[in-house]
Protein backbone atom coordinates (compact mmCIF):
# COMPACT_ATOMS: atom_id res chain seq x y z
CA UNK A 1 0.00 0.00 0.00
CA UNK A 2 2.64 2.45 1.05
CA UNK A 3 6.01 2.59 -0.66
CA UNK A 4 8.88 4.33 1.16
CA UNK A 5 11.12 6.92 -0.45
CA UNK A 6 13.81 5.33 -2.61
CA UNK A 7 16.86 6.53 -4.43
CA UNK A 8 15.94 8.90 -7.24
CA UNK A 9 17.02 7.77 -10.72
CA UNK A 10 20.02 10.05 -11.25
CA UNK A 11 19.38 10.23 -14.99
CA UNK A 12 16.57 12.73 -14.31
CA UNK A 13 16.33 16.18 -12.80
CA UNK A 14 14.36 15.94 -9.54
CA UNK A 15 10.71 15.23 -10.51
CA UNK A 16 11.69 15.26 -14.20
CA UNK A 17 11.14 18.96 -14.98
CA UNK A 18 14.11 21.32 -15.22
CA UNK A 19 14.38 24.00 -12.53
CA UNK A 20 13.47 26.88 -14.84
CA UNK A 21 10.23 25.16 -15.86
CA UNK A 22 9.40 24.50 -12.22
CA UNK A 23 9.92 28.16 -11.34
CA UNK A 24 7.65 29.19 -14.22
CA UNK A 25 4.94 26.78 -13.06
CA UNK A 26 5.33 27.97 -9.44
CA UNK A 27 4.90 31.59 -10.51
CA UNK A 28 1.71 30.64 -12.34
CA UNK A 29 0.50 28.75 -9.25
CA UNK A 30 1.15 31.77 -6.99
CA UNK A 31 -0.90 34.08 -9.24
CA UNK A 32 -3.59 31.40 -9.47
CA UNK A 33 -3.77 31.26 -5.66
CA UNK A 34 -3.85 35.08 -5.47
CA UNK A 35 -6.76 35.22 -7.97
CA UNK A 36 -8.92 32.24 -6.93
CA UNK A 37 -10.68 30.57 -9.86
CA UNK A 38 -8.90 32.60 -12.57
CA UNK A 39 -7.17 30.60 -15.31
CA UNK A 40 -3.49 31.54 -15.55
CA UNK A 41 -1.63 30.62 -18.77
CA UNK A 42 1.64 28.75 -18.41
CA UNK A 43 4.24 27.35 -20.80
CA UNK A 44 3.21 23.70 -20.70
CA UNK A 45 6.08 21.32 -21.47
CA UNK A 46 6.20 18.05 -23.35
CA UNK A 47 5.90 15.22 -20.88
CA UNK A 48 6.80 11.57 -21.37
CA UNK A 49 3.08 10.72 -21.17
CA UNK A 50 0.38 11.50 -23.75
CA UNK A 51 -2.16 14.31 -23.24
CA UNK A 52 -5.20 12.90 -21.53
CA UNK A 53 -2.91 11.18 -19.05
CA UNK A 54 -2.84 14.17 -16.79
CA UNK A 55 0.17 16.06 -18.12
CA UNK A 56 -1.13 19.32 -16.61
CA UNK A 57 -1.59 17.75 -13.19
CA UNK A 58 1.80 16.07 -13.46
CA UNK A 59 3.56 19.37 -14.18
CA UNK A 60 1.85 21.01 -11.20
CA UNK A 61 2.75 18.09 -8.94
CA UNK A 62 6.35 18.08 -10.23
CA UNK A 63 6.68 21.78 -9.42
CA UNK A 64 5.44 21.62 -5.85
CA UNK A 65 6.66 18.25 -4.64
CA UNK A 66 9.69 17.94 -2.35
CA UNK A 67 11.76 15.16 -0.84
CA UNK A 68 9.63 14.95 2.30
CA UNK A 69 6.31 14.64 0.43
CA UNK A 70 4.15 11.53 0.26
CA UNK A 71 2.19 11.20 -2.96
CA UNK A 72 -1.18 9.57 -3.59
CA UNK A 73 -2.62 9.30 -7.10
CA UNK A 74 -6.22 8.35 -7.87
CA UNK A 75 -8.18 7.86 -11.04
CA UNK A 76 -11.98 7.71 -10.61
CA UNK A 77 -11.38 7.22 -6.88
CA UNK A 78 -9.13 4.18 -7.29
CA UNK A 79 -5.38 3.97 -6.65
CA UNK A 80 -4.83 0.82 -8.72
CA UNK A 81 -5.88 1.87 -12.23
CA UNK A 82 -3.28 2.01 -15.02
CA UNK A 83 -3.24 5.81 -15.13
CA UNK A 84 -2.82 6.20 -11.36
CA UNK A 85 -0.16 3.50 -11.13
CA UNK A 86 1.93 4.93 -13.97
CA UNK A 87 1.86 8.47 -12.54
CA UNK A 88 2.83 7.17 -9.10
CA UNK A 89 5.70 5.16 -10.63
CA UNK A 90 6.79 8.19 -12.64
CA UNK A 91 7.31 10.23 -9.45
CA UNK A 92 8.77 7.35 -7.47
CA UNK A 93 11.38 6.97 -10.21
CA UNK A 94 12.12 10.61 -11.06
CA UNK A 95 11.86 12.05 -7.53
CA UNK A 96 12.47 9.04 -5.28
CA UNK A 97 9.60 10.16 -3.06
CA UNK A 98 7.35 8.00 -0.90
CA UNK A 99 3.91 7.07 -2.25
CA UNK A 100 0.78 5.89 -0.51
CA UNK A 101 -2.78 4.79 -1.15
CA UNK A 102 -3.91 6.12 2.23
CA UNK A 103 -5.57 9.51 1.93
CA UNK A 104 -4.67 10.53 5.49
CA UNK A 105 -0.94 9.81 4.94
CA UNK A 106 -0.63 11.77 1.70
CA UNK A 107 0.74 15.31 1.59
CA UNK A 108 0.02 15.68 -2.15
CA UNK A 109 -2.91 13.94 -3.87
CA UNK A 110 -3.14 14.00 -7.65
CA UNK A 111 -6.57 13.10 -8.95
CA UNK A 112 -8.57 12.51 -12.06
CA UNK A 113 -12.35 12.73 -11.71
CA UNK A 114 -12.87 12.37 -7.94
CA UNK A 115 -12.25 14.01 -4.56
CA UNK A 116 -11.52 11.59 -1.70
CA UNK A 117 -14.41 11.05 0.70
CA UNK A 118 -12.26 11.95 3.72
CA UNK A 119 -12.07 15.64 4.64
CA UNK A 120 -8.72 16.97 3.45
CA UNK A 121 -6.54 18.98 5.84
CA UNK A 122 -4.68 22.24 5.42
CA UNK A 123 -1.33 20.42 5.39
CA UNK A 124 -2.42 18.63 2.22
CA UNK A 125 -2.61 19.72 -1.43
CA UNK A 126 -4.93 18.20 -4.02
CA UNK A 127 -3.95 18.48 -7.70
CA UNK A 128 -6.68 17.96 -10.30
CA UNK A 129 -6.05 16.82 -13.86
CA UNK A 130 -8.10 19.04 -16.15
CA UNK A 131 -9.01 18.38 -19.81
CA UNK A 132 -11.05 21.56 -20.53
CA UNK A 133 -10.34 24.45 -18.13
CA UNK A 134 -12.84 26.92 -19.60
CA UNK A 135 -16.34 26.47 -18.11
CA UNK A 136 -17.86 28.67 -20.85
CA UNK A 137 -16.23 26.74 -23.73
CA UNK A 138 -19.40 24.98 -24.90
CA UNK A 139 -21.37 28.21 -24.77
CA UNK A 140 -18.78 30.53 -26.34
CA UNK A 141 -15.90 29.03 -28.30
CA UNK A 142 -13.92 32.27 -28.75
CA UNK A 143 -11.33 32.78 -26.04
CA UNK A 144 -11.32 36.55 -26.61
CA UNK A 145 -15.00 36.54 -25.61
CA UNK A 146 -14.77 34.21 -22.62
CA UNK A 147 -11.85 36.26 -21.29
CA UNK A 148 -14.06 39.37 -21.45
CA UNK A 149 -16.87 37.57 -19.64
CA UNK A 150 -14.50 36.56 -16.84
CA UNK A 151 -13.07 40.09 -16.75
CA UNK A 152 -16.55 41.54 -16.24
CA UNK A 153 -17.90 38.60 -14.18
CA UNK A 154 -20.62 38.45 -16.84
CA UNK A 155 -21.87 34.88 -16.56
CA UNK A 156 -25.37 35.39 -17.95
CA UNK A 157 -24.86 32.77 -20.70
CA UNK A 158 -24.23 30.07 -18.11
CA UNK A 159 -27.35 30.96 -16.13
CA UNK A 160 -29.37 30.93 -19.35
CA UNK A 161 -27.98 27.49 -20.26
CA UNK A 162 -28.84 26.04 -16.85
CA UNK A 163 -32.29 27.59 -16.96
CA UNK A 164 -32.95 26.12 -20.40
CA UNK A 165 -32.07 22.71 -18.92
CA UNK A 166 -34.73 23.22 -16.28
CA UNK A 167 -37.29 24.32 -18.86
CA UNK A 168 -36.51 21.29 -21.03
CA UNK A 169 -35.90 18.50 -18.52
CA UNK A 170 -37.33 19.84 -15.28
CA UNK A 171 -33.85 19.81 -13.72
CA UNK A 172 -30.26 20.76 -14.50
CA UNK A 173 -28.81 18.01 -16.70
CA UNK A 174 -25.16 18.52 -15.82
CA UNK A 175 -23.96 15.83 -13.41
CA UNK A 176 -20.18 16.08 -14.02
CA UNK A 177 -17.97 19.16 -14.29
CA UNK A 178 -20.82 21.17 -12.73
CA UNK A 179 -19.82 24.87 -12.77
CA UNK A 180 -18.86 26.61 -9.54
CA UNK A 181 -18.39 30.22 -8.47
CA UNK A 182 -15.18 30.83 -6.52
CA UNK A 183 -15.15 33.34 -3.66
CA UNK A 184 -18.22 34.99 -5.18
CA UNK A 185 -16.33 36.10 -8.28
CA UNK A 186 -14.89 33.66 -10.86
CA UNK A 187 -16.85 30.97 -12.68
CA UNK A 188 -14.72 27.83 -12.68
CA UNK A 189 -14.74 24.30 -14.04
CA UNK A 190 -14.16 21.82 -11.19
CA UNK A 191 -12.85 19.33 -13.81
CA UNK A 192 -14.97 16.25 -14.63
CA UNK A 193 -15.64 15.27 -11.02
CA UNK A 194 -19.22 14.20 -10.25
CA UNK A 195 -21.31 17.05 -8.87
CA UNK A 196 -21.52 14.83 -5.76
CA UNK A 197 -18.01 16.09 -4.98
CA UNK A 198 -18.74 19.81 -5.45
CA UNK A 199 -19.71 20.48 -1.81
CA UNK A 200 -16.33 19.09 -0.70
CA UNK A 201 -14.58 21.95 -2.49
CA UNK A 202 -16.33 24.54 -0.33
CA UNK A 203 -14.11 25.75 2.52
CA UNK A 204 -11.84 22.74 1.99
CA UNK A 205 -8.79 22.73 4.27
CA UNK A 206 -6.44 21.63 1.49
CA UNK A 207 -5.09 23.89 -1.24
CA UNK A 208 -6.72 22.88 -4.54
CA UNK A 209 -4.62 23.21 -7.70
CA UNK A 210 -5.84 22.51 -11.24
CA UNK A 211 -3.55 21.75 -14.20
CA UNK A 212 -4.62 21.60 -17.86
CA UNK A 213 -1.64 20.44 -19.95
CA UNK A 214 -2.97 20.59 -23.48
CA UNK A 215 -4.69 23.93 -22.89
CA UNK A 216 -1.78 25.32 -20.86
CA UNK A 217 -3.78 26.68 -17.94
CA UNK A 218 -3.39 26.53 -14.16
CA UNK A 219 -5.99 27.66 -11.65
CA UNK A 220 -6.49 27.29 -7.92
CA UNK A 221 -8.73 27.48 -4.89
CA UNK A 222 -6.90 28.47 -1.68
CA UNK A 223 -7.84 26.67 1.55
CA UNK A 224 -11.00 27.91 3.31
CA UNK A 225 -12.52 29.54 0.24
CA UNK A 226 -16.19 29.88 -0.67
CA UNK A 227 -17.19 27.55 -3.52
CA UNK A 228 -20.81 27.67 -4.70
CA UNK A 229 -22.40 25.41 -7.28
CA UNK A 230 -24.59 27.53 -9.56
CA UNK A 231 -28.30 27.09 -8.98
CA UNK A 232 -31.63 28.88 -8.77
CA UNK A 233 -33.77 29.64 -5.76
CA UNK A 234 -36.59 27.41 -7.04
CA UNK A 235 -34.12 24.75 -8.24
CA UNK A 236 -31.44 24.45 -5.56
CA UNK A 237 -28.28 22.47 -6.28
CA UNK A 238 -28.55 18.80 -5.37
CA UNK A 239 -26.05 15.95 -5.40
CA UNK A 240 -26.59 12.47 -6.77
CA UNK A 241 -28.13 9.80 -4.55
CA UNK A 242 -28.37 6.08 -5.16
CA UNK A 243 -30.92 4.61 -2.81
CA UNK A 244 -28.36 1.85 -2.27
CA UNK A 245 -25.38 1.07 -0.05
CA UNK A 246 -21.90 -0.21 -0.85
CA UNK A 247 -21.93 -4.02 -1.13
CA UNK A 248 -18.56 -4.25 0.55
CA UNK A 249 -18.65 -1.70 3.41
CA UNK A 250 -22.34 -0.79 3.61
CA UNK A 251 -21.78 2.96 3.21
CA UNK A 252 -24.86 4.79 1.95
CA UNK A 253 -23.22 8.22 1.89
CA UNK A 254 -20.21 7.79 -0.37
CA UNK A 255 -20.08 8.02 -4.17
CA UNK A 256 -21.08 4.61 -5.52
CA UNK A 257 -20.18 2.88 -8.79
CA UNK A 258 -22.58 0.35 -10.25
CA UNK A 259 -20.83 -2.90 -11.10
CA UNK A 260 -22.49 -5.39 -13.46
CA UNK A 261 -22.05 -8.84 -12.00
CA UNK A 262 -23.56 -11.17 -14.62
CA UNK A 263 -25.29 -11.17 -17.98
CA UNK A 264 -28.75 -11.45 -16.36
CA UNK A 265 -28.81 -7.80 -15.41
CA UNK A 266 -27.52 -8.43 -11.90
CA UNK A 267 -25.48 -5.62 -10.39
CA UNK A 268 -24.18 -4.22 -7.17
CA UNK A 269 -22.90 -0.90 -5.91
CA UNK A 270 -19.46 -0.34 -4.45
CA UNK A 271 -17.60 2.76 -3.21
CA UNK A 272 -15.72 4.62 -5.93
CA UNK A 273 -13.12 5.67 -3.30
CA UNK A 274 -11.24 2.40 -2.70
CA UNK A 275 -9.22 3.74 0.24
CA UNK A 276 -12.41 4.97 1.96
CA UNK A 277 -14.08 1.57 1.43
CA UNK A 278 -11.06 -0.37 2.71
CA UNK A 279 -10.79 1.85 5.79
CA UNK A 280 -14.44 1.19 6.65
CA UNK A 281 -13.99 -2.56 6.26
CA UNK A 282 -10.98 -2.47 8.60
CA UNK A 283 -13.12 -0.53 11.09
CA UNK A 284 -15.64 -3.37 11.06
CA UNK A 285 -18.32 -2.06 8.70
CA UNK A 286 -19.95 -4.65 6.48
CA UNK A 287 -22.10 -4.41 3.38
CA UNK A 288 -24.79 -6.76 2.10
CA UNK A 289 -22.06 -8.54 0.13
CA UNK A 290 -22.98 -10.28 -3.07
CA UNK A 291 -24.77 -8.98 -6.11
CA UNK A 292 -28.39 -7.90 -5.87
CA UNK A 293 -30.75 -9.23 -8.50
CA UNK A 294 -32.31 -6.47 -10.49
CA UNK A 295 -36.06 -6.33 -10.48
Amino acid sequence: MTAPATAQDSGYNFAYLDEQTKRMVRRAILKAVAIPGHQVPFGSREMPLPYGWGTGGIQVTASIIGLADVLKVIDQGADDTTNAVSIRRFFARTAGIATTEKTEDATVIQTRHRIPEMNLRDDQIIVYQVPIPEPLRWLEARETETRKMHGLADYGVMHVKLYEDIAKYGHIETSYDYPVLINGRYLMSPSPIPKFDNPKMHEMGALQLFGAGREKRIYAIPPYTRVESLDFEDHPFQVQTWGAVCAICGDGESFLDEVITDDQGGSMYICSDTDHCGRRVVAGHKGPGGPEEST
Partner: protein
Amino acid sequence: MALGPDFAPPHPLEPAAAAVCLALLDLDTRLWIDGGGDGAEAYLRFHTGAPLADAPDEADFAVIADGAMIPRLDSFSPGTDELPERSATLIVQVAGLESRAGEGVWRLSGPGIDGNADLAVEGLRAGMAEELAVNFQRFPRGVDLILCAGARVAALPRTTKVEAL
Protein backbone atom coordinates in the same frame (compact mmCIF):
# COMPACT_ATOMS: atom_id res chain seq x y z
CA MET B 1 22.06 26.39 -4.30
CA ALA B 2 21.14 24.74 -1.01
CA LEU B 3 19.39 26.84 1.60
CA GLY B 4 20.67 25.42 4.85
CA PRO B 5 21.01 27.08 8.24
CA ASP B 6 24.23 28.69 7.01
CA PHE B 7 22.43 30.51 4.20
CA ALA B 8 23.64 34.09 4.51
CA PRO B 9 22.80 36.45 1.66
CA PRO B 10 24.63 39.79 1.54
CA HIS B 11 23.30 42.89 3.32
CA PRO B 12 20.60 44.17 3.10
CA LEU B 13 19.02 40.89 2.05
CA GLU B 14 17.85 38.55 4.78
CA PRO B 15 17.42 34.78 4.37
CA ALA B 16 13.63 34.72 3.79
CA ALA B 17 13.53 37.40 1.10
CA ALA B 18 16.62 36.01 -0.62
CA ALA B 19 15.18 32.47 -0.59
CA VAL B 20 11.88 33.69 -2.08
CA CYS B 21 13.82 35.49 -4.81
CA LEU B 22 15.93 32.45 -5.64
CA ALA B 23 12.80 30.27 -5.80
CA LEU B 24 10.88 32.55 -8.16
CA LEU B 25 13.18 34.78 -10.21
CA ASP B 26 15.03 33.94 -13.40
CA LEU B 27 15.74 35.23 -16.92
CA ASP B 28 11.99 35.53 -17.59
CA THR B 29 11.12 37.88 -14.73
CA ARG B 30 11.70 41.62 -14.74
CA LEU B 31 12.99 42.76 -11.39
CA TRP B 32 12.85 46.12 -9.71
CA ILE B 33 14.93 46.68 -6.59
CA ASP B 34 14.20 49.44 -4.14
CA GLY B 35 16.85 50.52 -1.67
CA GLY B 36 18.87 47.38 -2.20
CA GLY B 37 22.18 49.05 -2.76
CA ASP B 38 24.79 47.39 -4.89
CA GLY B 39 24.98 44.26 -2.74
CA ALA B 40 21.42 43.04 -3.30
CA GLU B 41 21.42 43.96 -6.96
CA ALA B 42 24.67 42.21 -7.82
CA TYR B 43 23.69 39.16 -5.79
CA LEU B 44 20.21 38.76 -7.31
CA ARG B 45 21.39 39.43 -10.84
CA PHE B 46 24.23 36.92 -10.49
CA HIS B 47 22.14 34.15 -8.92
CA THR B 48 18.87 34.58 -10.85
CA GLY B 49 19.83 36.29 -14.10
CA ALA B 50 16.70 38.42 -13.79
CA PRO B 51 16.78 41.53 -16.00
CA LEU B 52 16.18 44.84 -14.22
CA ALA B 53 13.01 46.80 -14.93
CA ASP B 54 13.47 50.52 -15.64
CA ALA B 55 10.45 51.55 -13.60
CA PRO B 56 8.33 49.99 -10.83
CA ASP B 57 5.28 49.59 -13.08
CA GLU B 58 7.27 47.45 -15.53
CA ALA B 59 8.36 44.91 -12.93
CA ASP B 60 7.03 41.38 -12.49
CA PHE B 61 8.74 41.27 -9.12
CA ALA B 62 9.90 44.06 -6.84
CA VAL B 63 12.27 43.62 -3.96
CA ILE B 64 11.82 46.25 -1.25
CA ALA B 65 14.81 46.02 1.05
CA ASP B 66 13.25 48.23 3.73
CA GLY B 67 9.48 48.13 4.20
CA ALA B 68 9.59 51.55 5.89
CA MET B 69 10.50 53.02 2.49
CA ILE B 70 8.07 51.07 0.29
CA PRO B 71 6.69 53.12 -2.62
CA ARG B 72 2.93 53.52 -2.92
CA LEU B 73 1.28 50.28 -4.03
CA ASP B 74 -0.26 52.02 -7.05
CA SER B 75 3.27 52.50 -8.44
CA PHE B 76 3.24 48.81 -9.42
CA SER B 77 1.33 47.00 -12.14
CA PRO B 78 -2.04 45.60 -11.00
CA GLY B 79 -2.67 43.75 -14.29
CA THR B 80 -5.97 44.20 -16.11
CA ASP B 81 -9.45 42.82 -15.44
CA GLU B 82 -8.90 40.31 -18.27
CA LEU B 83 -5.25 39.52 -17.44
CA PRO B 84 -4.98 40.11 -13.68
CA GLU B 85 -2.05 37.68 -13.47
CA ARG B 86 0.12 40.26 -15.22
CA SER B 87 0.56 42.03 -11.94
CA ALA B 88 3.50 42.65 -9.70
CA THR B 89 4.54 40.52 -6.76
CA LEU B 90 6.26 42.58 -4.07
CA ILE B 91 8.84 40.95 -1.83
CA VAL B 92 8.99 43.31 1.12
CA GLN B 93 11.45 43.11 3.99
CA VAL B 94 10.09 44.34 7.31
CA ALA B 95 11.64 44.57 10.77
CA GLY B 96 9.40 41.95 12.37
CA LEU B 97 6.56 39.51 11.70
CA GLU B 98 4.67 37.75 14.45
CA SER B 99 1.38 35.89 14.72
CA ARG B 100 -0.18 37.52 17.77
CA ALA B 101 -3.13 39.56 18.93
CA GLY B 102 -2.86 43.02 20.44
CA GLU B 103 -3.07 46.70 19.74
CA GLY B 104 -1.87 47.82 16.33
CA VAL B 105 -1.85 44.35 14.78
CA TRP B 106 -3.56 43.51 11.52
CA ARG B 107 -6.60 41.23 11.47
CA LEU B 108 -6.44 39.29 8.21
CA SER B 109 -9.27 37.40 6.54
CA GLY B 110 -10.07 35.97 3.14
CA PRO B 111 -9.20 32.92 1.03
CA GLY B 112 -6.44 30.82 2.60
CA ILE B 113 -7.32 31.90 6.13
CA ASP B 114 -9.61 29.85 8.40
CA GLY B 115 -11.76 32.61 9.84
CA ASN B 116 -9.23 35.32 10.62
CA ALA B 117 -5.62 35.62 11.70
CA ASP B 118 -3.82 38.35 13.61
CA LEU B 119 -0.43 39.45 12.37
CA ALA B 120 1.92 41.97 13.95
CA VAL B 121 4.02 43.68 11.28
CA GLU B 122 6.91 45.85 12.46
CA GLY B 123 8.63 48.46 10.37
CA LEU B 124 6.25 48.95 7.47
CA ARG B 125 5.57 52.47 6.19
CA ALA B 126 2.53 54.19 7.69
CA GLY B 127 -0.62 54.17 5.57
CA MET B 128 -0.11 50.67 4.21
CA ALA B 129 -3.33 49.27 5.72
CA GLU B 130 -5.29 51.91 3.79
CA GLU B 131 -3.42 51.19 0.55
CA LEU B 132 -4.00 47.46 1.01
CA ALA B 133 -7.71 48.16 1.44
CA VAL B 134 -7.71 49.97 -1.93
CA ASN B 135 -5.75 47.07 -3.43
CA PHE B 136 -8.37 44.65 -2.06
CA GLN B 137 -11.20 46.71 -3.57
CA ARG B 138 -9.93 46.62 -7.15
CA PHE B 139 -10.03 42.83 -7.45
CA PRO B 140 -9.35 41.01 -9.78
CA ARG B 141 -6.64 43.60 -10.42
CA GLY B 142 -4.10 44.12 -7.68
CA VAL B 143 -0.61 43.45 -6.43
CA ASP B 144 0.41 40.60 -4.13
CA LEU B 145 2.77 41.03 -1.18
CA ILE B 146 5.22 38.61 0.35
CA LEU B 147 6.37 40.12 3.65
CA CYS B 148 9.71 38.82 4.90
CA ALA B 149 11.55 39.30 8.19
CA GLY B 150 14.68 37.33 8.98
CA ALA B 151 13.68 33.76 8.18
CA ARG B 152 9.90 34.44 8.37
CA VAL B 153 7.45 34.88 5.53
CA ALA B 154 3.81 36.07 5.44
CA ALA B 155 2.02 36.22 2.10
CA LEU B 156 -0.74 38.79 1.58
CA PRO B 157 -2.39 38.19 -1.78
CA ARG B 158 -4.84 40.79 -3.13
CA THR B 159 -7.77 38.80 -1.69
CA THR B 160 -6.60 39.30 1.89
CA LYS B 161 -8.68 41.80 3.78
CA VAL B 162 -6.56 43.82 6.19
CA GLU B 163 -8.14 45.47 9.20
CA ALA B 164 -5.86 47.49 11.49
CA LEU B 165 -6.88 46.92 15.13
